[in-house]
């Protein structure tokens, strides 16, 4: 299994350059990406992260020497199927709306005894330590909702409020370039250079926009979760940095997630 993924990785760069050449010729990057997604259908490198995540989910770790198997992701302790495609959601035990990553940190603290501040400090560094572990666990848990349709709740007042806050963040212009999320993601059929941009003010379609994250990024051989995706969007938007797991990131997750309700998740996706 691992070997086949490694072999796939070898051909990946070749496929990628082929895909991109084709995309340039065709005038859209989407077809090239669709092509190498198809070619990698049974050997997505994201599987390596997924496998590591599964081990970490089941492994007894931390000061309490416990696994994460009793983690309640919103559908009861240990229930993973369909949990990701309903996140972010309101959790009564914390009184907060949480996304998958902040909920997993909550479980690592409460079940395993890890230090919350240390986990938040480590989380942005996705390549090593607990940051890399969190990416792997996030990938594993999210993948248990592969093929499910987004179905975020707006029943709780706090969920509704986070949607409204997220909407205001989405249209918030600022920085030296006056950019908002909506500058790039507010219209249909938009492109930056050749990169197609999903319209995130509505359901952009199955496997597009939020329904395509977490994703393995071929160009830098990294697995990116929504937290990392939003962080790099804000960098390019010329904003200050959103803190990991901050309410701004969760509010945007609610806004984009509710808008995408009905879209099928293709997690773990593969990206340029």
């Amino acid at each position, binding site marked *: 299994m691992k070997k086949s993924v490694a072999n796939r990785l070898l051909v990946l760069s070749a496929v990628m350059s082929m895909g991109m050449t084709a995309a*340039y010729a065709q*005038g859209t990057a989407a077809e090239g990406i669709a092509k190498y997604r198809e070619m990698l259908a049974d050997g997505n490198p994201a599987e390596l992260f997924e496998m590591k995540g599964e081990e970490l989910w089941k492994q007894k770790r931390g000061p309490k020497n416990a696994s994460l198997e009793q983690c309640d992701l919103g559908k009861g302790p240990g229930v993973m199927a369909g949990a990701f495609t309903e996140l972010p959601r309101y959790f*009564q035990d914390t*009184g*907060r709306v949480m996304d998958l990553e902040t909920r997993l940190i909550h479980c690592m603290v409460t079940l395993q005894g890890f230090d919350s501040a240390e986990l938040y400090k480590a989380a942005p560094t996705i390549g090593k330590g607990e940051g890399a572990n969190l990416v792997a666990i996030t990938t594993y848990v999210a993948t248990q909702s592969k093929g499910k349709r987004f179905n975020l709740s707006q*029943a*709780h*007042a*706090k969920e509704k*409020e986070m949607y*409204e*806050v997220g*909407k*205001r*963040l989405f*249209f*918030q*212009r*600022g*920085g*030296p*370039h*006056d*950019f*908002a999320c*909506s*500058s*790039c993601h*507010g*219209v249909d*059929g*938009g*492109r*930056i*250079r*050749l990169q197609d941009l999903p319209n995130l003010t509505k359901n952009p379609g199955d496997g597009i926009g939020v329904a395509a994250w977490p994703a393995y990024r071929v160009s830098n051989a990294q697995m990116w979760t929504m937290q990392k995706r939003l962080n790099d969007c804000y*960098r*390019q938007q*010329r*904003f*200050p*940095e*959103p*803190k990991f797991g*901050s*309410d*701004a*990131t969760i*509010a945007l997750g609610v806004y984009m997630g509710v808008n995408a309700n009905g879209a099928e998740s293709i997690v773990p996706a593969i990206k340029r």
Partner: protein
Amino acid sequence: MKKAISFAMIPLAVVALSACTSGMGGANYEQAHADVVAASFQAKGIATLDYLKQDDANRECSAADVAGKPLDEKVAKAIEEANLKTVKWPSDGKFLGDWKEGEKIAQSGRGLTWSDKAGAANGGNCYNCHMIGKEEISFGNLGPSLYNYGKLRGVTDPNAAASKAIVEYTWGKLWNSRAYNACSQMPRAGHKGILNEKQIQHVMALLLDPASPVNK
């Protein structure tokens, strides 16, 4: 059962809300948004919290976008007038520089992110959104095509009196796009210090010099 739980949760939620944020009323989403912004962002590199400060134009246009309504006409006019006043005309009287340099600036999307260094020359980000020269096929589509920009506007001699209006408008648009369209999505290259006067002269040449490949 479900109903009973959700009713029981309301007082809890209210307590939690008032405990962690001040003045967050039942549906005061503006205040909730302001509180979330204040708590969520941190300075990184050159991207300080000053980046979050909005002028009237950004505040009004963001609010209009949230409401899904166009800006009130009077407000739009006031924004355009205020922004027009910020336009600095070329100090040496020259509107056009070197189109070859302009092409390089149009190609570059660098600058002013938290991973960029202070004082480094910024790019214009032009090809990210516009078709410009015909040779470059990797262009975005969020802005209109600028191919044949000068030619289509009849600019055969940028120094001629007949060209004055379009040359000045183009300078103003590059310096501060909001002078002509209150909620334009185009960055205000001169006003916000993205490009300096010399760089804008070069981009002007790319668009208006009859020798520029844009006008071939």
